[in-house]
């Protein structure tokens, strides 16, 4: 039997913002090629965990390791180390506005490859291919901050996919999107990830979890409350209620009115 290599290993990681704990001894392992969903209510630590995985901040306690090497601030003072990591691990922020800071969509998508020191010809070719893949070639010369919410998300995704990273970290990728844009974005993520890519998505939209993840971690108050397959997690109503991910849903069948937890599994609910 071949051992599955882990790409991220988080051990007892703690982090706090100005004295307010965001992560409390969180531990988890992410294997290469896995599609992971981090689900949890607002403030459960999903975004903080993604930032730790992207080495934008470092744990105050515990460790976060990438391919067996602990991520530390000292290591990231070396240019070659940082560039190599940023090339392999990319993060799409929840708010696309903070991620789009170039005058045109083309410049935006070209920003990452330029930082990596790619040649001009490579950058141009790769950016054009990515714009085509994402279906945003028509936005090439538009100013990113003038785009619609769905278009901004696509550009934000294109701006990291252009690097063809091994790991894609997505923070609430479908928030603020209309149903059609949401569905298109999920299709794009599925199309991109293939077999060798690792995708970690933080979300509290349970209805997309089965489509984007084969393993789910439920985060509650900065630590992992449960983990399992999407089907296992979504069918555990008590767990989801406890983690504030579902609410009581009251409705009527003919003359009978009843309530049950509002689940988002693809299965029909049982009465």
């Amino acid at each position: 039997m071949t051992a599955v290599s882990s790409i991220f290993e988080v051990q007892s990681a703690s982090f706090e913002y100005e004295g307010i704990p965001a992560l409390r001894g969180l531990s988890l392992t992410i294997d290469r090629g896995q599609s992971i969903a981090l689900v949890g209510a607002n403030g459960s630590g999903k975004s903080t965990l993604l930032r730790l995985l992207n080495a934008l901040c470092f744990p105050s306690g515990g460790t976060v390791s990438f391919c067996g090497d602990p991520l530390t601030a000292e290591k990231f003072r070396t240019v070659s180390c940082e560039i190599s990591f940023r090339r392999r691990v990319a993060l799409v922020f929840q708010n696309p506005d903070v991620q789009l800071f170039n005058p045109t969509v083309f410049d935006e998508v070209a920003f990452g490859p330029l930082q990596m020191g790619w040649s001009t010809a490579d950058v141009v070719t790769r950016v054009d291919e990515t714009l085509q893949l994402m279906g945003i070639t028509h936005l090439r010369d538009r100013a990113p901050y003038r785009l619609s919410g769905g278009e901004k998300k696509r550009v934000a995704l294109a701006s990291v996919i252009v690097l063809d990273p091994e790991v894609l970290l997505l923070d609430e990728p479908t928030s603020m999107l209309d149903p059609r844009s949401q569905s298109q974005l999920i299709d794009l993520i599925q199309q991109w990830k293939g077999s060798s890519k690792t995708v970690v998505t933080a979300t509290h939209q349970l209805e997309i979890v089965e489509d984007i993840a084969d393993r789910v971690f439920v985060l509650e108050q900065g630590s992992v409350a449960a983990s399992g397959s999407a089907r296992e997690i979504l069918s555990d109503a008590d767990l989801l209620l406890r983690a504030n991910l579902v609410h009581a849903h009251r409705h009527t069948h003919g003359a009978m009115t009843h309530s049950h937890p509002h689940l988002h599994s693809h299965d029909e609910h049982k009465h």
Partner: protein
Amino acid sequence: MSSDRTIGATLVGLARALGHALVSEQVARQPGLLQAFDPRVRVAGLLGLVLAVTLSHRISVVLALLCAAVLIALLSKVSLMTLTTRVWLVVLLFTGVIALPALFLTPGDAIFTTADGGLRITAQGATTALLLIARVEAAVTLTTLLVLCTPWMHVLKALRAFRIPQEVVMMLAMTHRYIFLLAETASQMFESRRSRTVGVLTGPEQRRMTARTAGVLLSKSVELSNDVFLAMQSRGFRGDVKILSEFRMRVWDYVGLTAFLVIAILAVWMGR
């Protein structure tokens, strides 16, 4: 003024600020005199002229440099209307207020005295005020031309070519990106406020509302600036500006640079 008008005016102002940025990018991509030069020539040449303006003590020389700036603007497809509304009127208003006391306080030969003899304008005072206004008008016009005719990332890269510290350039890069986010956030906050405001607010109520909005905006700005920086860092940004177009000096650029420097040196010499 009703609260609706105050908020409406603020919204229009914010929308205009965002629109200006878009116009700047469009102007920078048009063919024109300044646009034809290497960005380093534009930065060195125009900032050299700004230095000459500040070092000149003769009003005729400063006015000549202002005329040169207007000529450069016309040859670079920058409309005079843009300069009038974005530079000249604004500078006249703010610098005029600062220069006004000099008219009356500078000792010298009176050229106008009020009927009761209480106030008098001196020739020296008028010259000082005029020189101050002309200097600021010329300097701001030249700087505006640089920003209008050069994409911001090119300005930053050119600054790095002149060994401006990486930290300063990074600060400018962040400020430029961040200011639009802030303007957009402020615009949304005012819009939301307008949608929930009924009737006319009194002066103190308006001031309180503005102060509260400014406070919230400041808190949001700290968070936003941090996120914008992290987003740049996440894609490999380490403070060095890297853009697609490589800067290359051609004969035309050397001619332009020489012309700018000759004009600047002449202006300093004649205006001493």
